[in-house]
């Protein structure tokens, strides 16, 4: 509700006369904005990386490859790794990023944020010289570059109050939930070529489209497909669409009925007609598993749709269909609430299609749209939730499995506990070679499919709308890098 009121207010605000188009900052409209300027808090590292403020030691390029970023290299040294920094790196406050500062950053991140401990635990860190740091993970890690590219390990310097980072932009004004004003980081290369930027949080899809049309927004990130026909008719606008490394999925709370029964979860997996979801979202691909097909470790076959088999599973589980089609068991109806959130408009669009698929086989489904889904997931106050997730933010599949499917993970929202999956993840930590890792990840996928704590739905296509000033912008296949050092504004 709050966002709808804000959306209405934003729509009114967008009618204001824009400032001088030559000098005003580029305005980015998007549904998400960081909650904090401290990258060690929650997922702020991800948001600040997306905003062009934070960076990691390694990063993922446009083709999905892991490449050095702040780090020049990393090499194995027995059970440890030696990280070598690039020369002359500086934080946005002008201070030097050396091995001592790097140690302080990694120490703080792993102490403050459980996500940062996901793969390396609490590591032992030793400064070897000004540019080299020895990192000894708490447990074995094979793909260290990928781990060092993960957002919880965003490099920062914290003075007790504020965090300074190394990205191409630095924050100059932050209005929580509303906007973030950025200026080019003066200690980053090519500082003069980058424009100032204002990121405005616009949660409502129609408001975002109207903002682009009115000229108030230069980069409208993740436009709703429903608005595209109209926007494409405007000659002054450019629409760029890109398949993204995100995956849309339904998380099932395995602690709650009816999803505490594996047969019911499997039935949901089989009952959803994913081709209908793609039609509703105006594009995308049927999911094959956790990872979009662009990744070498993705499963090949699209998830199966077989409503009859789903019905048989429900029969076997004791959920019998009544005269009206509604399934009952021990006097209880087969029903649940499907929770989704407006920040990913596609999910709101496909929710009724999922309901239709499930109601055909005897479920009763209530859809709930919530402004803040993360707290609900964290507290596990949900039955089933639609979720959009970058499947391999560090270019490797281990991260999301560790974060979401290991039984002891703090972000295992499904309360999924599988000893075989945990054991397979342990083995994965020992595997170095890429082909062997891909095979191991596919093996874990099969274990997860069998238990179905999560139903993989589709790989989406995202759409970015650009004004003439921002027409050169090229979207990455994710929202991890919305603002980058190559951002330019035309006069």
């Amino acid at each position, binding site marked *: 509700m709050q966002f709808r009121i804000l959306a209405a207010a934003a729509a009114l605000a967008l009618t204001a006369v824009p400032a001088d188009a030559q000098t005003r900052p580029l305005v980015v409209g998007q549904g998400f904005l960081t909650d904090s300027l401290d990258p060690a808090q929650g997922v702020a590292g991800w948001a600040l990386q997306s905003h062009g403020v934070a960076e990691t030691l390694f990063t993922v390029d446009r083709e999905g490859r892991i490449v050095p970023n702040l780090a020049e290299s990393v090499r194995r040294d027995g059970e440890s790794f030696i990280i070598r920094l690039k020369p002359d790196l500086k934080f946005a406050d002008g201070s030097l990023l050396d091995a001592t500062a790097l140690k302080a950053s990694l120490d703080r991140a792993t102490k403050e944020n459980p996500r940062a401990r996901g793969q390396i635990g609490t590591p032992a860190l030793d400064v070897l010289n000004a540019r080299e740091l020895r990192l000894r993970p708490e447990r074995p890690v094979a793909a260290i570059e990928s781990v060092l590219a993960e957002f919880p390990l965003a490099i920062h310097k914290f003075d007790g109050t504020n965090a300074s980072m190394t990205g191409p932009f630095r924050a100059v004004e932050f209005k929580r939930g509303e906007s973030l004003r950025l200026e080019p980081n003066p200690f980053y290369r090519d500082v003069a070529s980058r424009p100032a930027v204002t990121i405005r949080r616009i949660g409502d899809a129609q408001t975002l489209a109207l903002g682009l049309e009115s000229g108030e927004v230069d980069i409208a990130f993740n436009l709703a497909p429903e608005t595209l*026909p*109209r926007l494409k008719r405007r000659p002054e606008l450019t629409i760029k669409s890109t398949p993204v490394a995100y995956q849309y999925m339904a998380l099932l709370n395995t602690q709650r009925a009816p999803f505490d029964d594996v047969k019911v979860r499997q039935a949901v997996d089989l009952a959803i007609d994913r081709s209908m979801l793609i039609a509703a979202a105006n594009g995308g691909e049927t999911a094959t598993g956790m990872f979009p097909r662009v990744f070498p470790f993705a499963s090949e076959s699209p998830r199966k749709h077989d409503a009859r088999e789903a019905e048989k599973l429900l029969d076997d589980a004791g959920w019998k269909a009544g005269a009206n089609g509604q399934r009952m068991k021990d006097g209880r109806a087969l029903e649940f609430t499907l929770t989704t959130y407006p920040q990913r408009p596609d999910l709101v669009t496909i929710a009724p299609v999922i309901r239709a698929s499930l109601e055909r086989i005897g479920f009763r489904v*209530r*859809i709930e749209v*919530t402004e803040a889904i993360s707290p609900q997931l964290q507290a596990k106050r949900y039955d089933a939730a639609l979720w959009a997730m970058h499947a391999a933010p560090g270019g490797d599949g281990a991260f999301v499995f560790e974060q979401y499917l290991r039984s002891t993970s703090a972000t295992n929202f499904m309360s999924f506990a599988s000893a075989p999956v945990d054991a397979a993840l342990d083995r994965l930590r020992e595997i170095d070679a890429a082909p062997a890792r891909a095979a191991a990840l596919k093996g874990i996928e099969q274990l997860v499919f069998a238990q179905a704590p999560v139903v993989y739905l589709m790989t989406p296509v995202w759409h970015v709308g650009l004004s003439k000033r921002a027409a050169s912008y090229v979207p990455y296949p994710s929202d991890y890098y919305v603002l980058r050092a190559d951002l330019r504004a035309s006069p």
Partner: protein
Amino acid sequence: MSHHAPAIVERRLWVLPALAGTALICAVWQPYAPDAIDMLNRHGAPTLAHWLGTDHLGRDVLARLMAGMGRTFLALGIVATMCVMLGLAVGLAAASTSGILRGALLRVAEFASVMPTLVVAIAIVSLLGFDAVTAGIALGLGAWGPYALLADGLARRALSEPYVQAARALGGTKSRLMFRHVLPAVLDTQLAYLGAKLGRIVIAYAALAFLGLGADSSRPDWGAMLFEYRLYMFDHPALMLWPGFAVVVTCAALRTALGQDRGARVPASSGDTAAALECADLHVHGAADNPVATGVETARRTG
């Protein structure tokens, strides 16, 4: 009897039952399941099969409007029942008591009156979640205050009427006085007031559904449809026009049926030459052992 009464009765006989009957039919029957998806027939134009066309998921718009009418009238019924029942209960209780209890009852009713109905409803629905029943309860809890104050005022006036005082003098119990004499006097005006406000309740319910409040925005409430279809405001404007039209027509119909009653029953004083009290065949006798008056037949007008 007043010459306005037959017109009122006629409207009540035809418009209200027609509306209620239509709503009932719409609640239990639609030509298609309102949530049934047909992705091969998205944004379908009006046809014989789909009179108002289909939406972005191929759902039949008419079926969704009909289901929305059923849900709107369910909420409306709950609000009306709560306002009248709560208003009468608190108002009559206040009128029949005195001192601290009366003061407390009236303060509560005044507080309920000054709080904006929609704000109260938003707060309650955000706690309970949104559907036709909870929204009806929330709107009812936000709207009963004026009914209680009205009932109190009317009841106190009725209690001071000579015929009620006479009944009390003849030994009528308090409860008998309230139910036999006061309640009928209050209820009539209470219902007229309710009638004038029902249209606003329809709009308030649509507003709640539009705002969402954790609601299922894909359910066919008219307000939720307006919200869901706003993305098609420019490319498929009919999707927004139909639920908006439904709200307007329903409000207008309720206004026609009930809202003008008060105007009909309370004629303007300016230029109105109709008698306030008409008597026929009145006989007055002065003898002490005879009735004071016999053969009295009166038609009394309010106002």
